[in-house]
């Protein structure tokens, strides 16, 4: 041990790539996940730049042109029951649909993670108290809870977002609690406690970096569920109000036209399907990219 003094050539300091750099590299090599990301990017960009991209006004229609089939002149994707251009409505509808899919999950990610990490790290009675309270919400089927909450709060976009957030907090808190509990008994957490660090410091330095990844992956898989639930709420008239375009709501209003123009009526559903499956594939890719032994 003492013979390190043997003349060694000066070495360039080695800096290894961090964990997230490695995950990023692996994710970029995952073709399926990248295809899903491309689809999502395309739909999101189209939604953001809807005023430029959409060929027509999504709210103005001519009843004379109602329920045109896919591929008709001037309306590539046909028209809806009020003669409005379907392509334009689908592009504009992406705004509200994506907003309602992503916002509740983002909010629930922060709130649920905080609840779960506190419960998991504190353990004992604090854990029991918090997790049993969470379980009460978890016991309701999510659709029922979302419908009941937004029904009670009243229809509207804000209330729909709020009720969806409440729906997603318990499952995220559960995942956060279980990964934190597993981590808490690690030797390096014990070593950190042995060095005299307080709970907040340990959570900040040692817990967050190790638990946020798995929670994040789980949360991305919930975006698809959130979109479907949000569409469901709009379908029931509890979310977005007509005439605003939103995929769930469009599905509802086109329902009556299903025998006249089944392909047109199915379009909003196809969009919901496309976006949710893309989120799921991206989430799967992220999960396997994170399965590096580190």
């Amino acid at each position, binding site marked *: 041990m003492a013979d390190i003094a043997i003349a060694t050539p000066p070495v360039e300091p080695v800096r*290894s790539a961090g964990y997230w750099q490695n995950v990023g590299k692996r994710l970029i090599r995952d073709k399926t996940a990248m295809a899903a990301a491309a689809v999502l990017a395309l739909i999101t960009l189209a939604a953001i730049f809807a005023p430029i991209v959409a060929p027509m006004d999504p709210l103005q229609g001519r009843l004379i042109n109602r329920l045109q089939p896919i591929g008709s002149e001037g309306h590539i994707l046909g028209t809806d029951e009020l003669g409005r251009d379907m392509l334009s409505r689908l592009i504009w509808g992406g705004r509200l649909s994506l907003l309602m899919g992503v916002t509740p999950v983002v909010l629930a990610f922060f709130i649920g993670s905080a609840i779960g990490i506190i419960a998991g790290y504190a353990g004992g009675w604090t854990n029991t108290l918090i997790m049993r309270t969470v379980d009460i919400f978890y016991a309701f089927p999510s659709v029922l809870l979302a419908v009941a909450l937004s029904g009670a709060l009243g229809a509207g976009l804000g209330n729909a977002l709020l009720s969806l957030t409440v729906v997603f907090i318990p499952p995220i808190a559960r995942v956060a609690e279980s990964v934190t509990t597993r981590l808490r008994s*690690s030797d390096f957490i014990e070593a950190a406690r042995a*060095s005299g660090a307080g709970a907040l410091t340990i959570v900040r330095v*040692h817990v967050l970096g190790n638990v946020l990844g798995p929670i994040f992956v789980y949360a991305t898989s919930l975006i698809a569920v959130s979109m479907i639930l949000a569409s469901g709420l709009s379908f029931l008239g509890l979310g977005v109000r007509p005439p605003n375009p939103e995929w769930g709501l469009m599905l509802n209003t086109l329902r009556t036209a299903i025998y006249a123009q089944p392909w047109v009526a199915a379009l909003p559903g196809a969009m919901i399907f496309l976006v949710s499956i893309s989120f799921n594939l991206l989430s799967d890719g992220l999960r396997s990219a994170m399965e590096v032994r580190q």
Partner: protein
Amino acid sequence: MSTENAILTVRNLRKYFPIKGGILGKTIKNVHAVDGVDLEVFQGETLGVVGESGCGKSTTARLLMQLIEPDEGALYFEGKLVGSPELPLKAFRRQVQMVFQDSYSSLNPRLTIEDNIAFGARVHGTPAREALSRTHDLLTRVGLDPARFAGRYPHELSGGQRQRVNIARALALRPKIIILDEAVSALDKSVEAQVLNLLADLKAEFGLTYVFISHDLNVVRFVSDRVMVMYLGKVAEIGDAEALYATPLHPYSGALLSSMPSMDPDNRTMEPALTGDPPNPIDPPTGCRFHTRCSVVGAVCSQKEPTLTQRAAKHLVACHAHDPASGYVALKAKEAAE
């Protein structure tokens, strides 16, 4: 070696782990993990702790580190009660550090080696720059080139290298005592020897005191000044390493030592010295806890619990066979007489 100056004194340390059951979560039984341990660790010595799996070695280590709360008992560091205003827990924590068996799980996988080591010093308010330069000094000291290792992540290192990092991390707070809980058990024999030599060098350089927990009796003999033998949460025997290995007083120590593989092929034991598993620590045997497996058991052994008493120079043992006042008669001797 030891200046007979107790740096750490343990009095009647007791830790039961409750087993909860029923819908109300009532404690139905207790695992007697550590049951009334008295112990002195002397300044500058290496105290070896041996015993079978589940005898409470690691629980004792965690109790000494104050990582778990004892149910009963007091801990004095340099004569001051730990947790009292005289010596608050945070001040005590930097005096005693620990190296764990699993070199991988004792490092945060998301932090670089230098961040893992510097964490403790940062917690105690050392400025970042100073903590970093101290970290690099320590890495050099444990035989790892900072230029090559400081910026790496734990999974990129071998087990021996990681254990060196763990030792550097333990040293970062400049502790007086280091508890080595099976710290070299998971390493290859050649790497183990290197790390043991490193530990010996560091001990001399920093004036450290070691509590060395291991199931490897050869290693314990090699490193220890004194050895403590534990059985089912109790101290069976404690004494100078050479004396204890030469003439073990407790029948359990004797059996344990004779189970040691011999280097001499002509001198191999054929019969296992100890048979069966240790009794369940949930319902430890009455009287002497070893009486169910003891080769020299007497009638008194199942009734009365022996106390840890000095029987030779600096050699304490808890056994009725060595206590003339206990009324001990070996059962086998009695049978032979009849």
